[in-house]
């Protein structure tokens, strides 16, 4: 996957880049409008991660420009800390594939990128297998084992899916909570609810096969290891 990261804030740029490289993406960097414009024009990318407030211009103009270029088939995800709420509408109107307000979680960024990919290539049945004989159907939102459905609630499915998506990473309760309850602003970290969900998930899965692939990392969170 070839990604162009357009972000003028050096530290943030570096962190996102490090994360994407760690997740096996090929990352190209642009720090200014001109740089980005040139790279979008000359290369072909799978993704453009676009900050809106750029030195030398507005990211939205860059998006408009890129969308007029028929050779450029990249998916655009807008990353911005701008307060204005119409930016979101404008961005999506101009053909952005997704919009992630800063501050965002890198894990969330990655799962959005995967969702965009799924949409783009219209995979009808995308199955992920895990544990001993489990499989997860992304579009059907079901977990199966040996031809049988594992009955999970919506949140339990989301939790398992997120852990599988970030296999081999330790996810903190905070990151899991943010994914499950999204941008609804709340004070508490919802960690207890995560613990209960994990407990129920293990109970339900272990009725079919051992569920020890969901590991507890003491004091930190959870992880699914291969």
């Amino acid at each position, binding site marked *: 996957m070839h990604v162009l990261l357009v972000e003028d804030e050096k530290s*943030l740029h570096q962190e996102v880049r490090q994360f994407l490289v760690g997740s096996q993406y090929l990352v190209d960097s642009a720090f200014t409008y001109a740089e980005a414009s040139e790279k979008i024009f000359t290369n072909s990318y799978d993704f453009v991660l676009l900050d809106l*407030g750029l030195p030398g211009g507005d990211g939205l103009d860059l998006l408009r420009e890129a969308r007029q270029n028929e050779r450029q088939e990249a998916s655009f995800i807008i990353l911005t*800390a701008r*307060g204005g709420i119409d930016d979101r509408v404008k961005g999506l109107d101009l053909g952005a594939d997704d919009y992630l307000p*800063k*501050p965002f979680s890198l894990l969330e960024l990655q799962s959005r990128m995967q969702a965009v990919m799924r949409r783009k290539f219209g995979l009808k049945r995308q199955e992920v297998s895990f544990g001993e004989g489990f499989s997860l159907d992304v579009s059907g939102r079901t977990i199966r084992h040996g031809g049988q459905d594992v009955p999970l609630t919506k949140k339990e499915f989301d939790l398992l899916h997120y852990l599988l998506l970030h296999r081999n990473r330790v996810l903190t309760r905070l990151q899991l909570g943010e994914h499950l309850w999204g941008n609804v*602003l709340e*004070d*508490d970290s919802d960690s207890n609810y995560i613990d209960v969900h994990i407990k129920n998930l293990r109970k339900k899965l272990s009725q079919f096969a051992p569920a020890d692939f969901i590991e507890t990392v003491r004091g930190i969170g959870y992880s699914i290891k291969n």
Partner: protein
Amino acid sequence: MRLEAKLALSNTLSKLLLVLLGALLIPPIVERVAVSHTDEQLREKCEQVLTLIRRDGIATFVQGEQYADYNILKQEYITLTRLPAASGGALPAPLRIFDEPRQVDNEMEDFRIISRQFVSTGQRYRLEIGSSLATVELLTATLRRMALWVLVIGALVTVLSDAAFAHHLLRPLHQLIVRRLEGVHHPSAFSYEPLATTTADFQRLDSSLTDMMRLVQSAFEKEREFMSNVSHELLTPVSILQSRFENMLQDPTLGDAHLLKLVDSQKTLYRLRNTVKTLLLIANIENEQYLRDESVSVAAVLTDVVEELEDRLTQREIVLHQDLQPDYVLLQANSTLLFTLLFNLVSNAIKYNCEGGRITITGRPAVTGGYQLAVTDTGPGIAARHLPYLFDRFRRVQAGAAAPEGYGLGLPIAKTIAEFHQARLTVESTEGQGTTFTLHFSQPSRNA
């Protein structure tokens, strides 16, 4: 009462008073005028008769004892009477004017009479000229009627013309109120077109209102700009830190002790982030940065909220009972914000409920119009002294330890979103029994 109506009323009242005064004063005045007019005529006639007598001699008129003459309609009569020689008594007053009945042709009539004694050829005579009082009264009545009509018509005409003029004069004021004040809920809706008026007072009022609104609007503009900058300035560093923490968490060389500290730092950062985002959200709502262009059913939003919170309800074994009769559809609403509002209320009701408790959501049309949605929990309740500060994002900070634990900024957001939808959010609580948050919607709605 409107100024124009008040002016018209006072005007009418004063004119009425004038008419009343006229009605009281005109009859006696007219009567006196009529009587003195009659008297004057009688005197003149008396002088004329005397002149004639002096010229032609008394014998021309009086052959016998008396001369009498009256006109056919008996409105006037003249008598000349020879008086017996003075008996040495005091002469009666030579000239008298009085009212007395007289018999004329077998009919009694009231007359205004002038009576004058004079001496001619050594003989005393009495000249009497009478004018029928009925004639005098006719004159009085006519005069009175005319005077009253003039008064009433004059009063009516001036009342109407004054009212019309006041209406014309006050029209700019009316426009000021309707267009400048009532029609403007937000500075952006204000029209800066100057008011068409030649009245200096209104021009001044209008220009000060416009100036004031310019100030308010520029303050709003500045706030919006400030918010945008603040969000950028605050959220960018938070963003950097958040990404950095996430990357560090994946670092296999990091020891357990550091990992734990990292998780803790992440928690602190989230708290900071949520506070910043909440304050920005509130500021953006208050600055009218959100659209209000959807019609949203409360029941539908509530269904989404309950679905989102289903797992928490199950985990805490809380029963949620929904009773919306009927549903309420807001015609100008923002569904995302309404979702946040109801989510905050219901999630609080879960959080501050006891295990195995109950949540009741009741929706009813309000007696005074509009709609009431109440979310009641069976939790420990909130002490009365905390209630006034529950929705206040700034007071909470000052209240410090007195603030109820953990309610956080969820309620200030709820209140702001409620106000954005012209709704009021109120709370009632009984310690040991539970708390009810009620939304009072006043928007006109379409009942579903």
